[in-house]
């Protein structure tokens, strides 16, 4: 029996080649996987943001590496195939591959001798080629085409970048000054309210202070307008909540005030003077308590005493409601004042340049476009307006377009009243009503308050472009008469 020589030199050579094969396979699979994933990413990039694209690219790259590792490590490498490849490359005509397969145990002794000769020749034929000689290391076709999907991925990123809005310009000095003044005024308002409303919830005051702090930061006019609008929305919601609470309290107080004891306070209650009403109720309470004490000293009838006690309890309940109403009224007052202030600030800021949207900057109903240097010259005057907004209630309508208040507009005037400077068009109309000279059936103040409330609702709903709000607000302020023209008996009202 022929002793077969060891096959180990051939096995070792093939193992080395197989390892090289795995490495080459890793890079080829990686290239192909990255190409395919890049094509997928090129499609997906059109539907996601740039940052998401970046994360996806990293994820896909990691996935490609994992796939390549799996392909290189997990897929078995056929050693016979590797040996055959070596044979084909070197020209040994299946010598190594045959030596790996031809085993001991051939039938005839001569057969074993053949196997031995094959093994000897195979061992001598090793070391003539390396992995890169056997397997193509040239760049795969997919990798050569890789720049195409990569560029395709960059296209939506570039489109996204080029469509990005430019950063807002730094606020003009006049705007900065306006914002600083607004911040100072809001802070003053908040401090004043804090002193007066010490017992009330301080949330709204804190929000005003926060806005004041925000306006002091390096904020653009656009962002300031957004902050103002946001706070106005929040405070208006609180105002509505308080309004509905007040209505409930008023109903309850009205029920409690039906008796004789509250007769004196009823008028004050109807007029909204809850503090005065509460004081009157306190006086009444004091009297009743004296009366009760007297009755107890005199040992009056039980029923009588009980009656007085009930009256006292009812009045105490009413007093509590009135005190709540008073406090609520103060809080509401603060909110309304704040909302008005915010609206004025917003309107004044809207008149300044540097606003987003040319149509708003340029569209001044009835006014010509002002040159920039003219705007800067008006800055001083505008700053004064901001500092004392509550004393500058309305500027009146522009006579140039609307003409005298009593004159109906002609067709020519209507056309003239269209926006001159802005890009958009807008129309306006006039409502003509009959005036029969009869007395109004609705109290002036009542109608005024209703109109004001409606106007406030309209404005605070923010369906109106910010630049227009001030004008609309002024329009309703025009309707509000001063003390000299107020009709007699209209009463004070908020």
């Amino acid at each position, binding site marked *: 029996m022929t002793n077969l020589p060891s096959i180990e030199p051939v096995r070792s050579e093939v193992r080395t080649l197989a390892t090289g094969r795995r490495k080459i396979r890793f890079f080829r699979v990686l290239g192909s996987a990255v190409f395919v994933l890049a094509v997928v990413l090129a499609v997906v990039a059109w539907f996601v943001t740039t940052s998401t694209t970046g994360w996806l690219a990293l994820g896909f790259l990691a996935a490609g590496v994992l796939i390549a590792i799996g392909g290189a490590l997990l897929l*078995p490498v056929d050693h016979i195939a590797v040996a055959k490849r070596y044979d084909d490359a070197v020209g040994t005509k*299946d010598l190594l591959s045959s030596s790996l397969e031809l085993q001991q145990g051939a039938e005839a002794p001569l057969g074993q*001798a053949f196997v031995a000769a094959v093994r000897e020749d195979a061992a001598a034929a090793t070391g003539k080629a390396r992995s890169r000689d056997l397997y193509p290391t040239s760049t795969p076709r997919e990798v050569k085409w890789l720049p195409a999907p990569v560029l395709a991925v960059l296209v939506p990123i570039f489109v996204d970048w080029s469509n990005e809005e430019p950063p807002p310009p730094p606020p003009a000095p006049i705007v900065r000054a306006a914002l600083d003044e607004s911040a100072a005024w809001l802070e003053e308002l908040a401090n004043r309210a804090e002193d007066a409303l010490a017992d009330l919830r301080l949330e709204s005051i804190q929000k005003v202070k926060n806005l004041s702090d925000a306006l002091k930061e390096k904020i653009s006019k656009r962002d300031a307008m957004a902050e103002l609008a946001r706070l106005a929305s929040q405070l208006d919601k609180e105002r509505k909540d308080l309004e509905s609470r007040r209505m409930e309290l008023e109903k309850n107080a009205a029920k409690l005030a039906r008796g004789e004891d509250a007769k004196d306070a009823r008028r004050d209650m109807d007029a909204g003077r809850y503090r005065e009403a509460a004081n009157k109720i306190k006086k009444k309470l004091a009297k009743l308590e004296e009366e009760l004490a007297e009755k107890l000293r005199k040992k009056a009838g039980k029923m009588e005493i009980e009656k007085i006690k009930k009256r006292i309890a009812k009045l105490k309940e009413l007093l509590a409601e009135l005190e709540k109403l008073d406090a609520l009224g103060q809080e509401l007052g603060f909110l309304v004042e704040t909302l008005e202030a915010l609206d004025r600030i917003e309107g004044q800021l809207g008149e300044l340049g540097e606003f987003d949207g040319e149509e708003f900057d340029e569209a001044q109903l009835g006014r010509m476009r002002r040159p920039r240097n003219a705007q800067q010259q008006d800055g001083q005057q505008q700053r004064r307006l901001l500092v004392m907004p509550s004393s500058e209630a309305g500027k009146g309508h522009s006579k140039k377009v609307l003409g005298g208040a009593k004159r109906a507009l002609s067709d020519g005037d209507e056309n003239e009243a269209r926006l001159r400077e802005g890009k958009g068009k807008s129309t306006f109309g006039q409502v003509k009503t009959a005036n029969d000279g009869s007395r109004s059936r609705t109290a002036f103040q009542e109608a005024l308050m209703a109109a004001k409330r409606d106007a406030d609702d309209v404005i605070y709903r923010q369906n109106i472009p910010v630049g227009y709000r001030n004008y609309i607000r002024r329009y309703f302020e025009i309707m509000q008469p001063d003390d000299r023209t107020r009709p007699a008996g209209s009463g004070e009202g908020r």
Partner: protein
Amino acid sequence: MSEETTEVRQKVEQFRTDFDKLCTEIGKEIVGYRDLIRLIVTGLFGRGHVLLEGVPGLGKTMTVRALSSAIHTEFSRIQFTPDLMPADIVGTTVVVQGDDGHKEFRFERGPVFANVILADEINRATPKTQSALLEAMQEHSVTVGSNTHSLDEPFFVLGTQNPLEMEGTYPLPEAQLDRFLFKVLIDYLDEDSLVEVIDRTTGSNNPKAEPVLSKERILEMIDLVRAVPIADHVKRYAVRIARATHPHSDVAPNQVNQFVKFGSSPRGIQAMIIGAKVRALSEGRYHVACEDVSEMAKPALRHRLILNFEGEAEDIKTDDVMDAVLQAVPEIKEGQTANA
């Protein structure tokens, strides 16, 4: 190089030398046809039989004669004609009278009782006569009556066919074509070779082949061929080639599916393997390579494919089908071999 392998190396080297010597000797008489000669000699050492097909005048008969001259063996030529009888091939029993007047039956051997048989124009004899020879080719024996007579080894039949003049012939049925190890097509020679043929055959210089191998040596070489080992992946390659000749197999190319009715039998795989072993030894190798198998595929399989009607109508050649098969079948299928 160890002592154990020295002997086998010497034997293989001797085989290669003798193989080349025989081919060279035959080449003295036959101009060109180097591949033809090598195939015929491969068939001899593969212990098979070879069918030669070519138009008349290409030297088929002369090649066989040259082979027979180059080896120390008995040679006989059988010219197949339509009136040839089986007894004309295998022999017959005749009544002979001895000197003493005693009559007895004696078997007179036919021409088949030789080592190298030239069965010329085998397709001209009747099927009955053809089968007599084909049985001898398969069994290496002849049965006459109740007696079986073994044929002397080596027994090598070279049949010839003329692809022209198919009228009045009896084409060998496929089952009998299968008996031939190889079918070799003889084509026209090139110009230079033809010039040399003219010089040799019309001039005074006619080299003759001399015997260079004895019968015993041929038998030794035949035994050595059988000892050559073949690796598993090479065997599987041969099997895949044969399977690819069957229509609708998983490895069959489109041309096979379209034009082939029946593919090769397992004898085709045997023929490829045997031929590959001889080829390996003739090149001095101790193992069979896939290249040996692919070189032997056409001679071994071209006569074992049966074309369908479409193939016949399209005048498709089995060689074209074999080209498609060799192109479609990979030498190694990754993952299907057992890692060593």
